[in-house]
């Protein structure tokens, strides 16, 4: 299906389906996430049976602040769709999709590691990229980039996030 057809088809169930730059994005509440994924997977003209990636973005200025992003793909029909779930920062719980898509295992661990989103029902939710005793979730916007300044023969260059020019 072309992106326009896909958007029209999905608008029946997801009224705020958005088409931008040739991609369809659906906005789902976390309580309906698993239902929506089952529906997208089982309907034969959609058959989104392949989960490409699970990640997140952090928008401190928005409400809700954290957004979990799921990229789905249909191998039969060669079309894609994106699902976004908004989560408040003080209660970043979302159901884990590992029962439906085993590939989400490591993706969700990485999203937990870097953003602090908690996936309920995940078999083994622990840090994957950072050391187990790391504190904080680095990819959130209020966490610093880190790094040290450079002191060389009297010239001081501050770390990247403190520089005025790139």
């Amino acid at each position: 299906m072309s992106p326009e057809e896909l958007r029209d088809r999905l608008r029946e169930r997801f009224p705020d389906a958005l088409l931008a730059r040739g991609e369809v994005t659906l906005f789902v509440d976390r309580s309906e996430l698993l239902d929506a994924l089952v529906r997208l997977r089982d309907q034969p003209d959609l058959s989104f049976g392949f989960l490409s990636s699970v990640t997140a973005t952090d928008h401190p200025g928005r409400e809700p602040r954290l957004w979990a992003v799921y990229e789905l793909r249909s191998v039969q029909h060669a079309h894609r769709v994106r699902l976004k779930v908004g989560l408040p920062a003080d209660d970043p719980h979302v159901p884990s999709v590992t029962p439906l898509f085993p590939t989400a295992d490591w993706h969700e661990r990485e999203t937990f590691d870097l953003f602090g989103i908690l996936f309920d029902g995940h078999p083994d939710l622990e840090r994957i990229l950072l050391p187990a005793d790391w504190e904080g979730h680095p990819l959130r916007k209020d966490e610093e980039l880190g790094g040290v300044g450079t002191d060389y023969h009297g010239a001081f260059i501050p770390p990247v996030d403190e520089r005025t020019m790139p």
Partner: protein
Amino acid sequence: MPVERLPGHLTGRAPEEVEEEARRGILLTTLDRAVSWARTQSMWPATFGLACCAIEMMSAGAGRYDLSRWGMELFRASPRQADLMIVAGRVSQKMAPVVRRIYDQMVEPKWVVSMGVCASAGGMFTNYAVVQGVDTIVPVDIYVPGCPPKPEMLMFGILKLQEKVRETGTIR
């Protein structure tokens, strides 16, 4: 090798003692130089490739830029059998204790070459995840800049290390 003869009453020792010490010095120096030469001629690196620099290190060991010209094509997997640790690539915070443990397991004499800017100073990754220079964890003998350094640059660094080992010597 010229030996400066100091009169015994200035050193507090008899001339024969000074003579004896000078002769021992010559012997030790010659032995020192021989041992240092032997050490440089067959340094065995430990396999410590981490990231992109590791691929260039493997290219340096492969056919075109042949490291076995200096007896180094044999990368030892066990650090106990290696004398040279070429830290090739970016060292993440999770990997840092492993680097230190491997270094501690190596037996003296041992040397460290920091290959690439990531190992030397953190490289372009001035952030939370990368150790800003492996010399914060282990003592480094030679820094080879580059991102990644061409195999010829690595070989130049290794030759400089051999020069350093020959000149500093380790017996006395």
